[in-house]
């Protein structure tokens, strides 16, 4: 009998249950190739990443290969592909390529070097902002989807408010009241631990019932927070905060990230709500796997498809927002060149030097278009329901 079954499996004619013929990546490529716009988007996406990395390497340091900050006042507003007037320049002022590939701006700075630097800045802003948004979105959506049915208890709210108020008052300089609130908060936390132990043993006094009263569920809490965030006019909010904070690249990334996590939260929550009913989650629970490990190791990877799509499109919109902020004069501050502020500086010379408007404008357009096309292609591929229809 034993040898029989061995023979059975060695026999190639009989096909046992086998893994799918093509791997996930092969299937991905097959589907992607059919969507030519998405392939073009992916190619531009990859090129842009290399240009951005090249921009970081070639334009930073004390003696960069392409110096975006080199001012040559005698060479201002030279059109693209024009040769420098070598006799007027000192040797270190001659552009590395021997010509002004994309012209010079009103201070005689080489637009090609500035575009290279701007590519790095734009991509950093896009990726970091979306990274922040996706991180917040996954954590919030994960909590709402997995622990959503649990209720926040009164003591938790009480302790949180006391601690927050204490910290806030301390920061505002009201020391005595702040310390008092902190002490109340910490005692509250300690007392609730104590009480919880008593609660588990079954000793429940009427007073405890009030202290441990269930209030709203975690799901309600997080989704109402999403609703509140959705009420703000986003660009106006970003503009306000960026204008009030000191100008810096990091502030812009953080602010864009903090105002765009709501979509991801909703997607992740919806996915987790359906995933948590599935057998593999029950199996993991039965094996005694910790909640956080179930969420992040088992469920989130299965919920990543819509997150990836919205992240790709989110990068595009973050780049657009950064360009818009730079255009209004609130973007990444000098000396960093970004595509938005090259365009914003160049718009004054739109009739004399149209390349200062059109080169960064088309660069932004092409990159954003590539991200959007690739993102939409990704959506079609990752969503089996849409596959046959398009």
């Amino acid at each position, binding site marked *: 009998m034993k040898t029989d079954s061995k023979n059975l499996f060695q026999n190639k004619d009989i096909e046992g249950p086998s893994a799918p013929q093509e791997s996930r990546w092969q299937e991905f490529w097959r589907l992607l190739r059919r969507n030519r716009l998405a392939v073009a988007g992916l190619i531009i996406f990859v090129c842009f990443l290399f240009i951005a990395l090249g921009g970081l390497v070639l334009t930073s340091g004390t003696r960069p290969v392409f110096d975006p900050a080199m001012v040559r006042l005698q060479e201002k507003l030279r059109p693209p592909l024009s040769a420098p007037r070598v006799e007027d320049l000192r040797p270190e002022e001659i552009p590395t390529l021997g010509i002004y590939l994309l012209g010079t701006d009103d201070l005689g700075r080489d637009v090609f070097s500035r575009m290279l630097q701007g590519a790095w800045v734009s991509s950093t802003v896009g990726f970091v902002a979306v990274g922040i948004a996706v991180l917040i979105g996954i954590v919030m959506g994960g909590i709402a989807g997995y622990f959503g049915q649990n209720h926040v208890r009164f003591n938790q709210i009480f302790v949180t408010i006391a601690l927050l108020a204490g910290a806030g008052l301390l920061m505002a300089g009201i020391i005595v009241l702040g310390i008092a609130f902190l002490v109340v908060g910490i005692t509250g936390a300690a007392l609730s631990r104590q009480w919880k132990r008593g609660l588990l043993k079954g000793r429940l006094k009427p007073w405890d019932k009030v202290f441990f009263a269930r209030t709203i569920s975690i799901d309600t809490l997080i989704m109402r927070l999403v609703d*509140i965030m*959705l*009420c*703000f006019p986003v660009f*106006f909010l970003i503009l306000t905060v960026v204008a009030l904070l000191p100008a810096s690249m990091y502030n812009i990334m953080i602010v864009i990230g903090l105002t765009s996590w709501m979509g991801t939260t909703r997607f992740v929550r919806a996915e987790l709500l359906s995933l948590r009913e599935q057998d593999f989650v029950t199996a993991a629970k039965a094996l005694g796997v910790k909640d956080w490990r179930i969420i992040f190791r088992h469920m989130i990877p299965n919920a990543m498809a819509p997150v990836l799509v919205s992240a790709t499109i989110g990068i595009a919109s973050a780049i657009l927002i950064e360009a*818009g902020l730079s255009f209004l004069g609130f973007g990444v501050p000098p000396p960093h060149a970004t595509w938005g502020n090259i365009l914003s500086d160049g718009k004054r010379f739109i009739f004399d030097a149209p390349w200062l408007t059109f080169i960064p404008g088309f660069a*932004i357009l092409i990159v*954003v*278009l590539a991200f959007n096309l690739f993102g939409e292609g990704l959506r079609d591929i990752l969503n089996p329901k849409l596959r046959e229809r398009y």
Partner: protein
Amino acid sequence: MLSFIGRSVIQKIITLFFVMVISFLIIHLAPGEPSQVDPLNPKFTPEMVERFREAFHLDKPLHVQFVYFYRDLFTGKTVSWKDNEPVLKKIGERFLNSLPLFIVGTILTWTLAFPIGIRSAIARGGVYDRSATFVSYLLYSIPGFFFAYILILLVVNTFHVPVIGMKTFGFGDVSVLRTIMDRVWHLLLPSVLGATVGIAVLSRYVRSQMLEVESQDYVRTARAKGLPSEQVHYKHALRNALLPFVTMFGLILPGLIGGSVIIESIFSWPGMGRMAYEAILARDYPIILSVNFISAVLVLIGTFISDLLYMVVDPRIHL
């Protein structure tokens, strides 16, 4: 139905309260104070700053300021810090300037997006569909300010008409027709720009909605029983595909106040967006907070209306 209305009104009021708190905190906890905007101005003596702080309750604790501010806002007494004019009056004036942009932009969006989307869906996969798809991505991806400059260059070079501002200055004593044409030319570009993203997004949405309905069984049945294709497309499919768009009438409400900052700045259009931008530059907190508050109210009313409309047009939904 009544319980749904009651619940959602209460919920929205709570949301609005938190929006008020958060926007107030963001503005007031940010570093820098309005009285420090212009420290080099010799007119701003310390006594002036002190009087200014007192006049606008800036010397009070934060929660008292919060109560004062929203009490003044609800009674219509809030004044701008910059010129002491009532905020609501200022917003009202600017709102009337933004209104034509909003109306023309909305009309353009809705009249163009539907035919484009429907035709793409019917001719799915064809040349028209593919080029419409590409163009809508293009319009969606183009930075608004860049597109504005392209259009300005095109229009000014081709038609030789001025487009910046609301009307041409010193145009007083010309015929009525010239004046109207002048206003139309000035109105055209900003509203087209305001509508581009809307057209791109809405036409894609119409297309996918229409495709969804076209793959339903009853449409196949209609086709199988030999109905002419116009009747299948426009009577059986389109009517059902239009359902979600009825609810979108509620969602265009916030656009009333969210006049685009960038476009109004480029065209020197004295509308809401530009006023908000100037208020941010001048740290005129009452205006920033009032604009924020009004737009939050409009978002909430808009979602409320769209929920109600959804219940009215779709009997399958009982909230």
